[in-house]
């Protein structure tokens, strides 16, 4: 279908078209800006939290895995699972800028989970952690130290961590 337009009327319409587009932008542009501003403000104040859309994650290797983990804002608690065919003794757990550098000595027999291991990070991370986790362990069978790297991504939960179990130097539940 061909539409024939009068050249004179077209040039008049051209000017009006520009005006209409500008008016459209001025009206809806402001609206869009206001919506973006409101969403940003909600996200900034924490009312609208996009971080909750990303699930918590603690991933290591297939042999040594995070069985459970908690974070209350300054202390991280871990339970590790040993899926290797040999026993391991976890000697240190470091998360990003938080390296307690203390000997933990938690034995984790093959096929079992460790007792809860806590590392105290103060307020290094704030509300959320998205960092590298390094576990140093020893294999009693060969007496050799090793380390394994993984990722920890979690948010602080408003929980009380039982301080009676915080000393990670204790031996573990087989």
């Amino acid at each position, binding site marked *: 279908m061909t539409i024939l337009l009068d050249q004179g009327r077209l040039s008049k319409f051209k000017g009006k078209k520009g005006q209409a587009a500008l008016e459209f932008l001025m009206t809806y542009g402001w609206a869009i800006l206001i919506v973006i501003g409101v969403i940003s403000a909600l996200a900034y104040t924490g009312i609208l939290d996009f971080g909750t859309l990303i699930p918590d994650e603690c991933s290591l290797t297939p042999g040594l895995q995070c069985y459970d983990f908690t974070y209350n804002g300054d202390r991280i608690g871990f339970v590790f699972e040993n899926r*290797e065919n040999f026993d391991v003794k976890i000697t240190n757990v470091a998360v990003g800028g938080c390296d307690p550098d203390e000997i933990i000595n938690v034995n984790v027999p093959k096929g079992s989970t460790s007792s809860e291991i806590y590392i105290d990070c103060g307020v290094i991370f704030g509300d959320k952690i998205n960092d590298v986790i390094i576990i140093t362990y020893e294999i009693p069978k060969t007496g050799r130290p090793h380390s394994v790297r993984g990722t920890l991504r979690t948010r602080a939960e408003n929980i009380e961590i039982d301080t009676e179990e915080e000393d990670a130097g204790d031996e573990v539940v087989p």
Partner: protein
Amino acid sequence: MKGQVSFEYLMVVGFAFLLIIPAIAIFFSASTAATEQVNYGRLEQIGNLIMTESDRIYYAGGNSKVTLEFNMPDQVNDVEIYCAGRDGSGDMVEIEDVTIDLPVGITGDVACELVFKTGDEVNPSEMVFIKDDILMKEELGEEYISAGLKQIQIISKGDYVLIQGYQS
């Protein structure tokens, strides 16, 4: 009119970028973590395969051999084998030369570790596989540690198992 077109263009493209850039960042972060996990899974398979075949070939007797083919993931920096045995005082000590028939001072209880080293210098990571009662030795050049399709041979030398590169 031209100014308006440019302004509209900037608004549209700017808004698109506003959406795309965070999405790319999230995608990149998630895919990096996923790739690492996939590579760990592949290394687990390779390690278990080598250990299982080493066991089989050792007990098959001297000069038995098998060729394995696998796809090495790209994050491996080094592969090593470490053997240890219990000495007279009950401590586990390294067996430096497995070619010697039960090294001096070792009373038994030997075990060998196959270690895949990944990560960087700041954040190293190791995947370890252990085999009891068998002494092992590796002679793998750098070309067998790099990413890609590799062929290795596991040969029984009677007292120990040798793992070496193989080119067909």
